């Protein structure tokens, strides 16, 4: 490298050549040095930028490894950053999410975690919880003092509010899950209704085989699309009907499974079928799903759409033509609406996206519930405190922080104590 032997100043990009052990030039590169505590990992770190060819990268890596370096394990940089104390546990997890994030929303949720909005929110809840514990502990540790910790009703109210806050946070997990794991849509319907055609329309490519023969799709097809920033998984399923060959039957069984497991079903109706109205009620009932949109397909072939009202056992209807593309935009709009219904306010930046966090929140919630019960029954305060401390330590497990002293600090700041 040019300037070999010189001290490199931090954060200054230097230009030079990467040479091998025999001083042969491998590539023109730039490099930068980041000192301890000021790098991503918190350790001293150097980065080398080379040209993008596979061969060059391999040669450089070989050279680096030969001179004693070790390839990082997946996630190791983040682990180091966590271990050096630069980021907390929740933020370390967020990095893992950011790396995996492939849509706008999952990116922004992960970014907010990384920036600590989320951690801050948990800390706020924890702070309130410590306040509640302090009220209760004060009456235990200072029984002779002339202090008036909160009355039963106020305590109950605080506990109730905390529960509600945790509930709200937990509810975001539905949204968080969508953001993180994606939203799953099954396209279902009777054979030949146009399911595969819709699938292709949404994908904007001819992915599924489309024929005029009913029963064309025998297994299922799954693809991901980006719908206004949401990662959406659409699945084209085999047509559902009563009789059929064995393969089709297998296809139908898998279709039923997919339907049971998805967030939303788009039920395709073939408007050219004379009896579609009569069939619809039974079909929807058979689906047994709580989130359905019905696409009245092949609108281009019929003159009028019967005016069927949603509600009374029928889902919302959207008239479409997978041939002309009419109604597809409207259908997408309805889908996004349905997703948004489950999303928390994304601008607040507070959303639970990890199953581990959800589990800890649930534990905190459970402990709070038990504490509320105890307050109600006038049980001894040290028992209530026991539950509340469990709730606090569940929250601590999200951000990884445990301080015993916090409670006393709170008591002394709230109450005038001391004989």
């Amino acid at each position, binding site marked *: 490298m040019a300037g070999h032997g010189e001290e490199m100043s931090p954060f200054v990009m230097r230009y030079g050549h990467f040479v091998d052990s025999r001083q042969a030039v491998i590539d023109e590169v730039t490099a930068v040095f980041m000192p301890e505590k000021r790098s991503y990992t918190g*350790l001293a770190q150097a980065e080398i930028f080379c040209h993008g060819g596979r061969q060059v990268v391999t040669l450089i890596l070989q050279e680096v490894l030969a001179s004693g370096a070790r390839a990082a394990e997946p996630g190791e940089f983040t682990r180091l950053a966590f*271990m050096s*104390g630069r980021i907390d546990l929740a933020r370390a997890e967020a990095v893992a999410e950011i790396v995996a994030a492939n849509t706008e929303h999952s990116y922004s949720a992960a970014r907010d975690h990384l920036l600590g909005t989320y951690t801050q929110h948990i800390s706020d809840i924890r702070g309130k919880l410590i306040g509640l514990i302090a009220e209760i502990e004060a009456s235990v*540790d200072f029984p002779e003092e002339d202090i008036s910790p909160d009355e039963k009703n106020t305590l109950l109210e605080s506990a109730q509010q905390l529960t509600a806050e945790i509930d709200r946070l937990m509810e975001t997990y539905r949204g968080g899950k969508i953001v993180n794991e994606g939203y799953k849509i099954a396209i279902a319907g009777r054979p030949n209704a146009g399911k595969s055609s819709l699938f292709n329309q949404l994908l904007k490519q001819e992915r599924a085989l489309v024929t005029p023969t009913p029963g064309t799709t025998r297994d299922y097809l799954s693809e991901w699309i980006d719908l206004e920033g949401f990662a959406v998984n659409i699945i084209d399923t085999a047509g559902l009907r009563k009789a059929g060959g064995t393969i089709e039957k297998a296809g139908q069984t898998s279709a039923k499974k997919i339907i049971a497991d998805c967030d939303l079903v788009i039920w395709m109706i073939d408007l050219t079928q004379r009896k579609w109205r009569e069939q619809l009620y039974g079909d929807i009932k058979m689906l047994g799903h709580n989130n359905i949109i019905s696409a009245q397909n092949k609108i281009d072939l019929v003159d009028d759409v019967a005016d069927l009202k949603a509600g009374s056992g029928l889902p919302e209807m959207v008239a479409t033509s997978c041939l002309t593309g009419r109604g597809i935009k409207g259908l997408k709009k309805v889908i996004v609406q349905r997703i948004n219904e489950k999303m928390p306010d994304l601008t607040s930046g507070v959303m639970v996206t990890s199953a581990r966090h959800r589990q800890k929140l649930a534990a905190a919630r459970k402990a709070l519930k038990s504490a509320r019960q105890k307050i109600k029954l*006038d049980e*001894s*305060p*040290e028992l209530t405190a026991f539950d509340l401390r469990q709730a606090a330590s569940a929250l601590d497990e999200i951000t990884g922080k445990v301080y*015993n002293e916090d409670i006393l600090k709170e008591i002394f700041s709230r109450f*005038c104590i001391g004989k």
Partner: protein
Amino acid sequence: MDYDVIIVGGGHAGVEAALAAVRMGRKAAIVTMDRHKLALMSCNPAIGGIAKSHVVKEVDALGGLMGLAADATGIQFRRLNLSRGAAVWSTRVQADRSHYARFISEYVADIIGVDVIESLAGAILTENGKVAGVRTEDGVTITGKTVIICSGTFLGGLIHIGTKQIKAGRRGEKAAYRLSESLKELGFEVGRLKTGTPPRIDGDSIDFSKCEIQPGHEPIPFFSHRSDRQPFEQTPCYLTYTTDQTKEIVSANQHLSAIFSGQIKSIGPRYCPSIEDKFHRFADKDRHQIFLEPEGNGTNEVYPNGFATSLPEDVQYDAIRTVTGLENVRITQPGYAIEYDYCPAFQVKPSLETRRVRGLFFAGQINGTSGYEEAAGQGLMAGINAVLYIEKEDPFVLDRSQAYIGVMIDDLTTRSTTEPYRLFTSRAEYRLAMREDNARDRLNRFAQKYGLVPEDEYQAFEKLQIQTEEAVRHFKEVRVKVSDLDHRGDRFKKVDSISLEKLLKQPGLTINEALPLIARFNGDIDFTREALERAVISIQYRGYVAKQEREIAKFLKMESEVIPDDFNFASLAGLKQEAKDKFIHFRPGSLGQAGRIEGVTPGDISVLSIHLLRHKRTSK
């Protein structure tokens, strides 16, 4: 003069240390300024109280003296928190100050046979990094294998009353300045803390009719199973309040207080604020309670608990005379604040032996604590560990799940002192499993192991344990007809009868309600009150204790990840500098302890654990 254990300072810590050493068969001496002031209570004449009483019970279970002395000299006994669960009950005894010190002096010198040397220790003698003895300020050398410093508030003691400053360890007593220098010369870091005390007043000049009477509790809740004192007529305490004028006077003169004038720079305890501090910090509170506690039966002196102050004497007079009932009161001794030296406790190991000088131990106030009970607990541990050190045995360390003593010493050795430390039940994570009633269950085996209690006591306790278990079993078998119950039966309407156990386990049932129920439904058994109480407590807490035991198992796992003494924290790669500094400072002995050091993150602990693993592998 040559001893196994030399104790400098015959306060609450020193006395227990000497006693333990002698019980373990060693020759011990207490070097102290005044042989008649052994375990003299410097401040309020009371032993026990929240969390402190747990320590008294623990000291008692380990053969210590404090509980017995309080029982013998108490004039009023109370059990705080009785309406709460047994885990937070706390015995508090109002003791006769001079009788207490006399009782202890006689016990220590005459019954136990500790040499009490009346002198002021000025220097710690060492040889090759080991302690060798002490030299008194008048030049006498006393040699010993171990030395325990229990110097209380006397190290560099400086009293403040308004702008007046007096070098003293306690009012009217000398301070120990040379010893403090000696510690610094040995390389110890010495810090400064502050505490304060109220004026003493003449009981004859108090109008008690304006105060609220606070009688003792019956039956008298004695501390020690060893005491044989019979029920007696208790002396009441009184409660009164400051008035608007008090607030006015104190606030107007606040600037004259040594605390506010800047004369005192060290930190005092948040839980023991001076009266000027109370009006200042909680300005919206108009009055504060003052407990009037008699100093003893043979004296008229009264201790106005809650009125600690370092205001000038004339202001103290004006202010206290505005307290209801004290309008014509006479002050017999002014209140004062005192600053003193202490050695931040990162310098001692969990055994209380110093890291710097082998065989030298610190106990009590010198470790940054405050309170007689805290001192006694440490003194006892230091005494035992001094003997174990001589015998080259492993030290005796109680962990956070075994005793409040363990919680205290662990707190002291893993966090920086920001104020004089005292115990609270909220400091004990496993508080439901560490109660007054089961102190002996928790500690008896150690008492026996180290020979701290006579064998017959041990056997008597086993009998009590068996009785407790029998009572528990019995409660399960006895059936109670729901129709025989008052409102307590409401919850059991669906059944004809329930077990007595179930009845006793009802939430919110206090012991005072439980005992009559037992008497009523359990007529034919004849267990002692103590056994019955223990049985009720054990069934009421069983579920929680089981839960805590699971937590304790997790905790113990981390405690058992031992960090060797020679572990080199400085060389650990991947650890941030702050964490390294903290580890080097506190030298944690286990992964669990490392995790409790303030400011250490879970991340630091995972780095440390990786290095520990590697260390273990390579050193095998």
